[in-house]
């Protein structure tokens, strides 16, 4: 990429800056900045709520040469706010006569241990890219997102070394105007702990959180019956 080209990171988690999506996005844009690229960052759930923000979103998209879309898996696909943003972008792009080629990279994470559970959401993003004429650069798909828990990848240390390696490779490729390499996809998708350990820790974590709210004993409640 040339240094005068613009990169836009759109964080699609409703948790905004404290989300795992933001951590992953931040790691990638730091690498891109090290290559001298300028990156702008914004939060989809902040932008889509009001007309003014929606206009801002569309203007930022128009100015971008590469968009990095980072979001968590919600109910097997994209969170509603991210779909709303994509609907707005698609409608707007259809109304434009001359549109420049914009690259799209997806950074997705899910709370399940298997990164493969993100596949449907990635397929949806790919169709979006096709429909609006964006250039599909690839997706980095991560499972066990709960183990990152919104912390930076540096803070998570050796456990996520393969994720960092994969992201470093992806940054290098994007700078060289290439697609995300298969090696990067494989590294990011690698399980960074045994599934049994992740699920056990996760289940204990839910109990701990419920206890904090005084809800431990009613965690299996069945309202509305």
């Amino acid at each position: 990429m040339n240094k005068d080209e613009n990169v836009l990171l759109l964080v699609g988690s409703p948790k905004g800056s404290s989300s795992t999506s933001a951590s992953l996005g931040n790691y990638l844009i730091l690498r891109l900045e090290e290559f001298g690229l300028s990156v702008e960052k914004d939060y989809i759930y902040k932008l889509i709520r009001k007309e003014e923000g929606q206009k801002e979103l569309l203007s930022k998209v128009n100015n971008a040469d590469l968009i990095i879309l980072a979001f968590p898996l919600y109910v097997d696909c994209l969170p509603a706010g991210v779909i709303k943003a994509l609907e707005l972008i698609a409608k707007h792009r259809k109304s434009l006569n001359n549109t420049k080629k914009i690259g799209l990279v997806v950074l997705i994470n899910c709370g399940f241990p298997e990164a493969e559970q993100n596949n449907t959401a990635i397929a949806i993003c790919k169709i979006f890219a096709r429909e609006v004429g964006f250039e599909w650069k690839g997706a980095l798909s991560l499972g066990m997102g709960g183990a990152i828990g919104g912390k930076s990848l540096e803070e998570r240390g050796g456990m996520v070394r393969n994720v960092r390696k994969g992201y470093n490779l992806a940054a290098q490729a994007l700078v060289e105007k290439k697609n995300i390499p298969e090696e990067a996809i494989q590294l990011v998708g690698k399980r960074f702990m045994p599934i049994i350990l992740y699920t056990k820790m996760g289940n204990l974590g839910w109990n701990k959180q419920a206890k904090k709210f005084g809800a431990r004993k009613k965690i299996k409640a069945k309202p509305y019956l």
Partner: protein
Amino acid sequence: MKAIILNGFKIENGEMAKIHDLMLEELKKLNWDTTSIVLEDIDIAYCMGCFGCWVQTPGECVIKDYEAEIVKNLVQSDLIIYFTPITFGGYSSILKKALDRQISRVLPYFTKVDGEVHHEQRYEKHQPFIGIGFLDNPDAEKEEVFKTLIYRNSLNMWTSYHEAIIYEKGQDPLEFSNSFNKALMNVEVI
């Protein structure tokens, strides 16, 4: 027997209004007591991703709005139907807004089913589930992704039966009625 339709369409779509009427007709013929919720009419908040519905007020979202009524209907229904324009292969944002807020229907705990991890079920009832998607133009890729999404949702939401029905713009409504009726007959068998 209760059925719920979550309608993720823009109200002005006349062709879809017609299909919606056909669905109601078919359901009535088979004695389903149907509640159809037109989501565009309703102001509900976006899910905040706080997991309060799992650890703070288990089974109920911490945001108090009409979504509580939607979840109540989902829990009490014997058949769940999603009705949506196929949006890049998935659901419209209008429908998805309601779906993101109903994860309280499962528990936070992880469990393995057929070698894959899912959340445990909160309720014993396994409901049948039909996803109906509207396509503006024929698009095999979108169809495939939509069908996969319905299948994935059926796994993660513990349904007893799932079916994805695609309606293409301009299609013979009778054809749609037949497919829908066939799915309902399958549901009856279950």
